[in-house]
């Protein structure tokens, strides 16, 4: 309202000189004019009138004496007064107007400075509302003529969409195994030159229990396809939910003894979509320093505060929690999570869940446990790490799992508290905006769970899980206990892990001039990512070490054993990476297979690394 007065008082100053002088109070209009025009002079006679009228307000007299203004200004002052008077009249006619006038007059009388402040405040408010939302960007902008703009556009050449695969990297494309026929215990590999290697023992598959080719499960899936076809043809919230989807949720929840369950279309996507539902800016998450890439990206995209604790080092975790306690107690009650894996995808070991649960309860943090690999492989009946430590599932607030690994189907899931799951149904990006899982996948997962549970008797070993854990222990003991391999490799994984992780031993790494790890905080690659330098994403030593591991795989494959290796992408990983040779076990393999595998792989390791040592690069 004040600003309206100011604007209108500047409109028509020629007419003002003729108009009558109207003074009853030193009004807002006068003061404004005087304040905004102190540099010019006022006509003597009118000056005295003005000063007489305003004399009552002691605070401004000094200013007026300074202001030796012209007749133009006097006119403005008159005009302002006139407009003000008219405005007052108008306001009086409106209901409630008298109240406003009284308020302004009273406030002005008591404290004229306040009027000034209020006017300035009003002006600021107007400026603020009119200002562009991106004023920062606007201010940063250079002023360019059309010609300059055209020239700059002419000049601009973008970098290529992606860098071409260089000759040094091309072997990676050639060595991705191409399987002819089904992926099962023994596979046929079609080599890059189109020759076939048949009957190769498969140690690269994540189908730990061999459920993908299990006839009972296959029959159930086929029955379902005959009933409903392949695709679900819609998001779960729009008629994409079939009764089989509801069943598999119930089955998973019951199998894991959880309150509720939600299923996703892809395992890797599950954590990336679940975590941002519960973590926003200002929340805090403490992540295991060896976490898989899905958890890293999930934490990153949540934009919450991230702390990392050393892989499986619960003392370090407690240290961090202790150091945070004071800040957390003072601040608002934000959401707090600890994130780790049931069985580490990168290391093949597990945290001490019992202690972890104690710690998180003590510090009132919630636990997110990624059991993608451990469900179906760990515990007597495949119920994951919680079964190993005999911890009730309700103590783990969020459990994330995969149906694409031990369950031999596809998709991911998340189990836990009902409220938590309900919130995901509404807000989880990959659930809301994506089509539902194909119904036959849900059906086959239900069938796998039925197989696992119907053969379960208390105190007895589960016929599907036990062979896997026996195999894991046996192969681990062969590699870890081998005296001849000691100088070459270190077995990183634990005996219970169904994936055997083998690294080049640190002594040999030193001898070969290999770094302890690649990438990670402060590395050249992550700096390159920050600066957008795609040429520097390539690390020649990482490439070389990976190539040597691939040679071990190639040599083993010739003797009909197919191990695999880490194919981690340095510039996507936030954490340090060490290349590993990996053997994924399966419940279908027997002792002879493992003995044979050991002999083949250990020979290949020794040969390749010896050669490398002898030749240098």
């Amino acid at each position: 309202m004040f600003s309206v007065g100011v604007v209108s008082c500047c409109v028509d100053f020629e007419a003002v000189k003729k108009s009558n002088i109207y003074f009853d109070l030193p009004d807002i209009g006068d003061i404004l004019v005087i304040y905004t025009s102190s540099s010019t002079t006022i006509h003597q006679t009118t000056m005295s009138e003005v000063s007489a009228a305003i004399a009552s307000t002691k605070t401004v007299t000094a200013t007026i004496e300074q202001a030796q203004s012209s007749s133009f200004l006097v006119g403005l002052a008159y005009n302002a007064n006139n407009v003000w008077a008219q405005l007052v009249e108008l306001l009086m006619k409106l209901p409630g107007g008298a109240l406003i006038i009284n308020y302004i007059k009273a406030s002005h009388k008591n404290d004229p400075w306040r009027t000034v402040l209020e006017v300035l405040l009003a002006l600021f408010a107007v400026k603020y509302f009119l200002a562009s939302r991106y004023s920062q960007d606007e201010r940063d902008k250079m002023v360019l003529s059309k010609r300059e703009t055209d020239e700059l556009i002419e000049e601009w050449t973008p970098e290529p969409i992606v860098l071409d695969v260089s000759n040094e990297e091309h072997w990676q494309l050639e060595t991705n195994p191409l399987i002819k026929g089904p992926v099962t215990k023994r596979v046929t590999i079609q080599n890059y030159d189109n020759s076939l290697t048949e009957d190769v023992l498969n140690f690269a598959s994540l189908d730990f229990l061999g459920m993908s080719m299990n006839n009972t499960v296959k029959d159930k899936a086929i029955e379902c396809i005959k009933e409903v076809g392949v695709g679900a043809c819609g998001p779960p919230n729009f008629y994409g939910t079939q009764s089989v989807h509801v069943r598999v949720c119930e089955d998973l929840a019951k199998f894991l003894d959880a309150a509720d369950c939600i299923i996703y279309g892809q395992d890797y996507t599950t954590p990336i979509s679940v975590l941002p539902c519960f973590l926003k800016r200002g929340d805090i998450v403490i992540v295991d320093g060896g976490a898989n890439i899905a958890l890293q990206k999930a934490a990153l995209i949540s934009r919450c505060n991230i702390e990392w604790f050393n892989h499986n080092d619960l003392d370090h975790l407690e240290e961090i929690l202790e150091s945070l306690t004071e800040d957390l107690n003072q601040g608002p009650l934000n959401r707090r999570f600890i994130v780790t894996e049931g069985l580490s995808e990168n290391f093949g070991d597990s945290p001490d869940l019992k202690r972890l649960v104690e710690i998180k309860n003590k510090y009132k943090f919630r636990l997110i446990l990624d059991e993608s690999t451990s469900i179906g492989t760990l515990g007597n009946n495949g119920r994951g790490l919680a079964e190993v430590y005999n911890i009730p599932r309700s103590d783990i607030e969020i459990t994330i799992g995969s149906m694409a690994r031990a369950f031999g189907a596809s998709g991911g899931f998340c189990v836990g508290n009902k409220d938590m799951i309900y919130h995901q149904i509404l807000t989880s990006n990959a659930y809301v905006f994506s089509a539902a899982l194909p119904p036959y996948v849900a059906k086959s997962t239900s069938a796998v769970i039925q197989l696992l549970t119907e053969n379960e008797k208390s105190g007895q070993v589960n016929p599907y899980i036990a062979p896997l854990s026996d195999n894991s222990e046996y192969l681990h003991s062969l590699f870890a206990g081998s005296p001849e391999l000691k100088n070459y490799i270190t077995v990183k994984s634990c005996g219970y892990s169904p994936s055997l992780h083998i690294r080049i031993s640190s002594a040999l790494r030193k001898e070969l001039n290999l770094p302890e790890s690649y990438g990670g905080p402060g590395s050249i690659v992550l700096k390159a990512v920050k600066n957008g330098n795609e040429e520097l994403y390539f690390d020649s030593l990482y490439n070389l070490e990976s190539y040597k591991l691939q040679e071990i795989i190639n040599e083993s494959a010739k003797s009909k054993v197919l191990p695999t290796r880490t194919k981690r992408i340095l510039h996507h990983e936030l954490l340090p990476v060490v290349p590993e040779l990996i053997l994924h076990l399966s419940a279908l393999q027997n002792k002879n297979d493992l003995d044979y595998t050991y002999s083949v792989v250990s020979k290949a390791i020794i040969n390749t690394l010896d050669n490398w040592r002898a030749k240098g690069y």
Partner: protein
Amino acid sequence: MKDYYDINELSSKVPDPPVSNLPIEEKAKMEFGPLTSNKWLSVAQLDPNEEIKPSILDEPPYFIVLTTYLDYLVFLLIGHCKDFFGMLLMPQYFSALVAKDGYPPWYSAFESFYPRRLKRRLDDCFARPIHGVPGRFMNCFNRATPDYNESFRYDGTSTPCLNLSSYNYLGFAQSVGKCTEDSIEAVKKYGLSSCGPRNLIGNTDLHQNTERILSKFIGKEDSILFSMGWGTNAHLFSSMVNSKCLVISDSLNHASIRFGIRLSGAAVKVFPHNDMNALEKLLRESISQGQSKSHRPWKKIFVCVEGLYSMEGTYCNLPGLVSLRNKYHFYLFVDEAHSIGALGEHGRGICEYFNINPNNIDILMGTLTKSFGAAGGYISANKNIIDRLRLDITANNYSESMPPAVLQQISTSMRIIAGELNGNEGKERLQRIAFNSRYLRLGLKRLGYIIYGADDSPVIPLLLYNPSKMPGFSRKMLERGVAVVIVGYPATDVISSRIRFCMSSALTKEDIDRILAISADIGDELNLKFSTGIAGGEKNPGDWKKGIRPRWSIEEVLAKTPEDCKKKVLY
């Protein structure tokens, strides 16, 4: 479902599907209606000489806009009152929203206000469990709620409803036919899973063959398949752009694209939906100004659009985009999630529709859920790009690969569309969806509804405006045996709540007659016919200028529209 029930007799569990005694021929007809006459075919293809019409949005009367805002105001007031008094007097019902034992709530009352207080009221229209094939008909379980949608109870029966909600454009959601037979064979031969990431083990001859068929179908050098459509977009951008790159995105782009860009850390600018002038202005400014603050030139600039927008039924202006691309040398990304298979004479998507060579687009992405009755997504581009992405995209190294049955469904359905299998079946499916979409769209416009989108688009949004009309329309449709999808805020603007009809080749012309008749009734009951005729549906061209509104009677619509909708110009 009967009208009255003793709530205790009902089960809170979603029932198993009742055993069906339908003979196989009947079942096939329920999934895919046979073509009733060769007259009901059309082609979804832009004439090369035809000019592209900008999409015209009809405006509702001020009264409707006002009442819509009022509706939301009342909802907000009641919701906040309920929250305030509820938390005060009955805290046991708000356990998820309040801190307990030193643990913060799972989500805040503010964050969840919309779903709890507004969406909950219409929850009975969402996530209705179904059984059987989501084809021409879909079996919806009958359910009732004893506690205002807090929970649902089932009596074990289901109703077959005409399906206007599934993404089943070409009707490949079938349990009878070549696709299903082949998929079953694939399960028998290859098992259920691909058993690991693509680069480790999950790379079979089936994957390679399907990719070859797909690349040929799309007309690009090479493609990669991914097991999830949403995931394809979510993981793609991290491998192409970094924080020194700019992504210019259409304001109505799908959530997965936005998620992927956010994950990549690239700078984002948004241009108003399909506004080519605004896009050009933004491009000129971005290229000349460079990165914010440092003013260094952007390393790459991507423009991301969708071929067919799933909420609006509009196409991107591809010819406009391609000419801008030639002028400004940015990279063009087109998400063909809804357009691939559904548009163009041979179903090759938005490029074919606009007669544009796919090589004018750098990255073509699409999903395989919608037209092919499968699941997953793909990326098609030049071979050097795909080779790099094979090594570099996270989904290829860390995530599961596509399962065999899905792959087989894709390759068989794609070969049917391309005419390599089953003779003319693919062509018929393409021509049926083109006719069906045009027929329903023109019919609804003539009845007086405000309909968004392009003539050939199989997505037909019918505008409702008032939020309370959403459940009203959905429930009334369900009573009459039609299943529809309702979409409201936050997926759309606050005021433009809508019904989204997803057309399918599986429907017959007679099914659409039925839908039109039902819509005509419901439109009168709920006061939904506000169209001015500016966007079409007039009796004589130019009527809208004279203030004559299109309000055809249902008899007139059914008599004339089937022939009229095949004409090149609908208005």
